[in-house]
């Protein structure tokens, strides 16, 4: 089957362009793009009558979002989020690939659990699901998991999520072994002693609110340690979230030294700061905690320059009970699959990041890091696409979200940018009426 997406503003993160044009899809793969739909059909020798035509009416067509670090709460806490609900949320949010986290109950740390997850995911979801596995058994930082078997079973990366492997010997061996398998290791750069018990970033706000706080320096200390270990082991490494200005020079040096290192940042750290917590609003409690405005600006610049490679949702469903508690005791995390794109549009409308820059960080770079052909508009790539209008204004009502949990910090927020349709392998998996 052949589909022509005509009259679209093509957001091409590889070329860095956003020109009006057309895109042709055949059998789930992108056949090609061109400035004119008719000419594109002619070069392929196709007749407009024999292909399905989607008139994009000048709206933006971009490669679908590849989201590294989505928490789906299966196995263990299906009431918070299932593969079905997460898949619907992803489709509605323009996310066409979810790399899912292993911080479930139990952890995804054996090939058997991973196979269960893959079965559940494939049966339920409209979008691609790529499971990640734990780096150490039970995410306890003591023994490495069966990295080879887990890769054979389909694990795309290895991570203990927000658990830092404290024991450097254990971590260095796991990194060494992972390198021998060619596995990607994703870590949470943080000095665990300094950050223990923290609910906020240290500074005036945390002190006024009387919240246990962590210095932003803890992130740099964690990253510095990890960089030394990558240099030692040669492992492929991705820092899940770099959120502070102080960590950026270390990242820059590591990249300049040729280490195989990339870094991500969550959309919340790009669009919110510590003061948004206001009077102990627990939906704003994330991990690491929201940072100062100076840090936020520095991190946006790092995304613009490409120093930070990836923007992710860090989608973390939490039920009402775990959030309706005093701030210190409340659970961390926020759902974000559906708010990722509209929140990212804030950065576009503020003039800080262009649409190609945003989709380089949300689609192209994460796809590259995971070795996927998706994330681009080039011929031969999987036709995972999102059609959106960056300007449509709306007020977010959290009860309209598809996730089973609705713990979003953007409830009631004025946002701009709506997904109109999402396509996975050329098939529409979401259409806004």
């Amino acid at each position: 089957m052949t589909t022509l997406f005509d009259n679209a503003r093509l957001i091409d993160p590889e070329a860095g362009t956003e020109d009006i044009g057309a895109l042709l899809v055949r059998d789930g793969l992108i056949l090609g793009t061109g400035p004119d739909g008719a000419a594109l059909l002619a070069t392929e020798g196709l007749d407009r009558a024999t292909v399905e035509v989607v008139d994009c009416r000048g709206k933006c067509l971009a490669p679908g979002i590849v989201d590294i670090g989505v928490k789906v709460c299966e196995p263990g806490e299906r009431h918070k989020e299932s593969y079905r609900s997460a898949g619907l949320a992803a489709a509605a949010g323009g996310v066409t690939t979810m790399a899912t986290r292993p911080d479930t109950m139990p952890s995804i740390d054996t090939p058997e659990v991973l196979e269960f997850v893959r079965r559940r995911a494939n049966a339920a979801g409209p979008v691609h699901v790529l499971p990640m596995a734990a780096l150490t058994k039970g995410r306890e930082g003591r023994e490495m998991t069966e990295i080879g078997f887990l890769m054979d079973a389909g694990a795309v990366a290895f991570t203990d999520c927000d658990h830092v492997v404290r024991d450097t010997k254990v971590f260095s061996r796991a990194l060494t072994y992972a390198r021998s398998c060619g596995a990607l290791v994703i870590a949470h750069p943080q000095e665990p002693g300094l950050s223990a018990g923290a609910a906020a970033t240290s500074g005036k706000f945390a002190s006024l609110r009387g919240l246990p706080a962590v210095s932003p320096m803890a992130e740099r200390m964690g990253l510095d340690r990890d960089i030394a270990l990558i240099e030692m082991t040669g492992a492929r490494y991705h820092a899940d979230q770099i959120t502070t200005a102080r960590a950026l020079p270390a990242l820059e040096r590591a990249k300049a030294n040729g280490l195989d290192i990339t870094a991500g940042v969550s959309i919340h750290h790009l669009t919110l700061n510590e003061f948004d917590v206001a009077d102990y609003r627990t939906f704003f409690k994330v991990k690491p905690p929201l940072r100062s405005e100076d840090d936020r600006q520095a991190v946006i610049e790092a995304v613009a320059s490409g120093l930070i490679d990836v923007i992710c949702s860090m989608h973390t469903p939490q039920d009402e009970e775990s959030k309706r508690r005093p701030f210190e005791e409340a659970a961390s995390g926020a759902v974000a699959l559906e708010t990722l794109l509209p929140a990212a549009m804030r950065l576009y409308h503020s003039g800080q990041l262009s649409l190609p820059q945003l989709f380089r960080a949300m689609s192209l770079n994460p796809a590259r890091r995971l070795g996927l052909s998706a994330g681009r508009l080039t011929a031969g790539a999987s036709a995972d696409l999102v059609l959106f209008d960056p300007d449509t204004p709306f007020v977010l009502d959290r009860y309209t979200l598809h996730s089973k949990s609705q713990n979003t910090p953007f409830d009631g927020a004025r946002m701009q940018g709506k997904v109109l349709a999402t396509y996975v392998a050329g098939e529409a998996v979401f259409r806004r009426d």
Partner: protein
Amino acid sequence: MSFSHRHLLGIEHLAPTDIVTILDLADTYAELNRRPNKHSDALAGLTQINMFFENSTRTQASFELAGKRLGADVMNMSMQTSSVKKGETLIDTAMTLNAMHPDLLVVRHPSSGAVDLLAQKVNCAVLNAGDGKHEHPTQALLDALTIRRAKGRLHRLNVAICGDIAHSRVARSNILLLGKMENRIRLIGPPTLMPSGIGEFGVEVYEDMNEGLKDVDVVMMLRLQKERMDGGFIPSEREYYHRYGLDAEKLAKAAPDAIVMHPGPMNRGVEIDGTIADDINRSVIQDQVEMGVAVRMAAMDLLARNLRERSAA
């Protein structure tokens, strides 16, 4: 007299005029409390529940006495031995209490922000009797009243707050209140007991007690919690007393008529020399306890007036 707040959750939300309103009314209650007949009917017919999720003798007794003198029906609930131990959440506890139709809820909780959370879920007026490391508004108000009565004013004073600032809700509320009333505030303590971002608080920070106390009008000592004494934040009790304990020698640096305050309970020989605490010419520690009852009466009276106005409207 204008006081339009529904709850008393912290000094942060109060305007200087609110503070003066409370203190003025508290002055009249201080006089009432010295009379043989100490009874008023300001809270007659109202129910006051004291909910303490954290140990407290003094504050709870002060609130209880304040309520009883104003004619309220007062109930004390010690939450440490109750359903909280059985796993009930704070919200459920609040909803349960709410169903009993209290008018005034006095709450102390070990988590910062817990009292704010509770106030969102109940229909009555909530008074924060201390939440975690956040605020303890009635303590700051009683300190303010004590200072105003001893010094004749509550502005343009040099006030030193000394000791464990980082873990102290008393310090936070006092910094906010004294700042709003336009006083110069100095914080004195070891850097390990200073909160982060202290430079942005509009205060002067000193690590040396002798330097920091120079010419101050008011010396506020803070209690050093036992669990912070051993190695974690300071090397030892005796070194702390040597460097930061208030003794005659250090107090001599302050203005000759400087007053000495302490929120209690005191650790004699840790943060304060016993003879200074007992010196009737310098120490106003007993006045603080007395003003505590008066300030709490005033705060509850004002909140009750708003309750009645709202239910009449």
